[in-house]
């Protein structure tokens, strides 16, 4: 039982990292209908920004956190303006390819700016580095911080979409962009807001998880891949689905590694996804849209 508890705890904390990336993907997808393949690079780039602010410039953690989120938002909004909006009326494949291009640009910039600072840059933990005991289980406090951060971000964005005018306009744009224009919603601004928000989530995730992931220019794609898998499992449009998907992936990896062998850890979450999609083709929280004819 103790083994199971440790593996479960490990899976949940790893899943929280995947969930944070998935949340950003879902926010952009909800508003624009596009999967942002640069989400992992937003995460990576923001991590380096936080490293500059916190380690090189000596800003305290709270200020670093806020500045990084603001810079992340600005980066996302800028991306929308220079890379997405000019081709906004193109087909979805072109839009997705544009995000792939952004990913390469960000990685290239990171290699030039930070590629010669260290093979893997370490980011100081915001919590005590020493393991602590929670419910009889040894955990690293930073992992709990990631878990808590995921929950807080989920609650904030659920509230944003349900309670704020901007959130409701994003939902309306995602449901039907043409209808949204007809009722006076400036969809261009909504897209900018969505990209900015998605990048801001990536930035928050990066600051929380950088002590665990370390920082290197190639960090983005592996993180994106797991986050994307989590988002697919959750249904691509659901915030709770993204979180649940991330946690399921993390737990599947951990249990498979602990009870079968570590060589099946990478494979196991994708087997779980295949099984889920066989029974629920639109993901755990996805739904089939139907049109009355």
């Amino acid at each position, binding site marked *: 039982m103790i083994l199971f508890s440790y593996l479960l705890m490990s899976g949940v904390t790893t899943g929280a990292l995947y969930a944070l990336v998935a949340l950003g993907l879902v926010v952009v997808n909800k508003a624009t209908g596009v999967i942002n393949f640069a989400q992992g690079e937003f995460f990576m780039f923001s991590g380096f920004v936080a490293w500059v602010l916190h380690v090189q410039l000596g800003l305290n953690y709270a200020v670093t956190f806020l500045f990084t989120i603001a810079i992340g938002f600005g980066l996302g909004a800028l991306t929308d303006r220079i890379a997405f909006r000019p081709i906004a009326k193109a087909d979805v494949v072109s839009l997705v390819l544009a995000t792939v291009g952004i990913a390469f640009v960000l990685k290239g910039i990171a290699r030039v700016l930070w590629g010669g600072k260290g093979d893997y840059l370490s980011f100081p933990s915001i919590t005590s580095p020493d*393991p602590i005991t929670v419910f009889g289980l040894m955990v690293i406090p930073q992992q709990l911080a990631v878990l808590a951060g995921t929950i807080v971000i989920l609650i904030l964005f659920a509230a944003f979409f349900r309670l704020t005018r901007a959130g409701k306009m994003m939902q309306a744009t995602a449901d039907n962009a043409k209808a949204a224009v007809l009722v006076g919603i400036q969809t261009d601004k909504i897209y900018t807001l969505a990209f900015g928000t998605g990048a801001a989530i990536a930035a928050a995730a990066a600051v929380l998880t950088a002590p665990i992931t370390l920082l290197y220019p190639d960090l983005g794609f592996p993180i994106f891949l797991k986050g994307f898998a989590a988002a697919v499992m959750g249904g691509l449009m659901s915030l709770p689905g993204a979180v649940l998907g991330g946690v399921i992936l993390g737990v599947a990896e951990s249990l498979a590694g602990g009870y079968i062998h570590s060589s099946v850890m990478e494979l196991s979450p994708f087997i779980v996804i295949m099984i889920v999609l066989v029974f629920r083709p639109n993901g755990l929280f996805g739904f089939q849209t139907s049109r009355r004819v």
Partner: protein
Amino acid sequence: MPAIAQQPGVTSKSIKIGAFGALTGPGYLYGQLVMNGVEVVFDQVNAAGGVHGRKLELVREDDRCDPAAAIGAVQKLIHQQKVFALIGGGCSNATLAARDVIETSKIPTLINASVHDGITTPPAANIFSAALTATIESEAQLDFALKQGAKRIAVISMRDGWGRGRYTPLMAYFKAKGVTPVADEELTPDANDATAQVLRLKAANVDAVIMVLYPKPAAVFMRDASKFAFKPLAIGQTGIADPKAFEEQVGIPGAITQFRTIAMVKFTPEDSAVDNWRKLIETKFPGDRLSVFNLVGVGSAQVFVEALKNAGPNPTWDSMTAALANIKDLNIDVYPGPISCSLADHRCNRVPAWLAKDPGKPVRVLPSSGG
């Protein structure tokens, strides 16, 4: 001097030498920093009058640790820059990919940081290595564990191209030694958690773990091992050649007290024995601090210069290749053992140094180094 004029990269006043490796990205340690070490040696040689009166000119190309880019970088150096010889090779997979181009061209080449066996085995007539190789390191890891009295030895490895290049000779050496690993676990290069692996190794009652890992997964493993108070002898290799940086990456005080790793050079950057190299590096490259990767470049450049001297006043590709093959028992200040090449075996460096780091103290070279 028509013979000289026909040699690419050689004039009456200079010899152009090509260097390839990563100048950007995480692999820059094995590229840019190693090249910086090479360059300060060349500067010193030039200040003393050059080699047979010719100044050495280093031309760098970025392979970005990428196999395709490495092929392009080498082709550019050979055919566009028309260098006389090559010294370089950082990331193993990239250098391995470029081997065919180098071998076909017949340009004399000294590898200085790449460790993949396939670069030097089977030997290509014109490619020699001043770096340790994967097999040499893997065997040294197991020998080290046994020498420390470990009875229950486990392996944790990456199974990508880099990892396989070390894992396969390691398992073969286990078999040759008649030792069976008590556990054999895998960890991916991008892993962020190693709880499952740590729990399995702990359950196997392991007292030494041979790590075939990059610094990131190794740091994740050591962090999670520390979480469970699991502190076996952890044995790294040159992929984790900087224990000071590794301690920061792990981030838990005291987590790497049982960590030992291989270095190609026998000095740490703080050692007073390398004051001269520190001064040269930090003067020429302001903002840089001497690293073990600089010293790798320093060592290989001295081997290269020795061969170039022995190639004679009118060096040709054939005479340079022969000079490299004939290096015997050459003692270089930074290497733990002598450098010896032969026509049959182009792995010229066979003696690793061992490093350790205690909390709050500088990295130390273990007395067993060189033996």
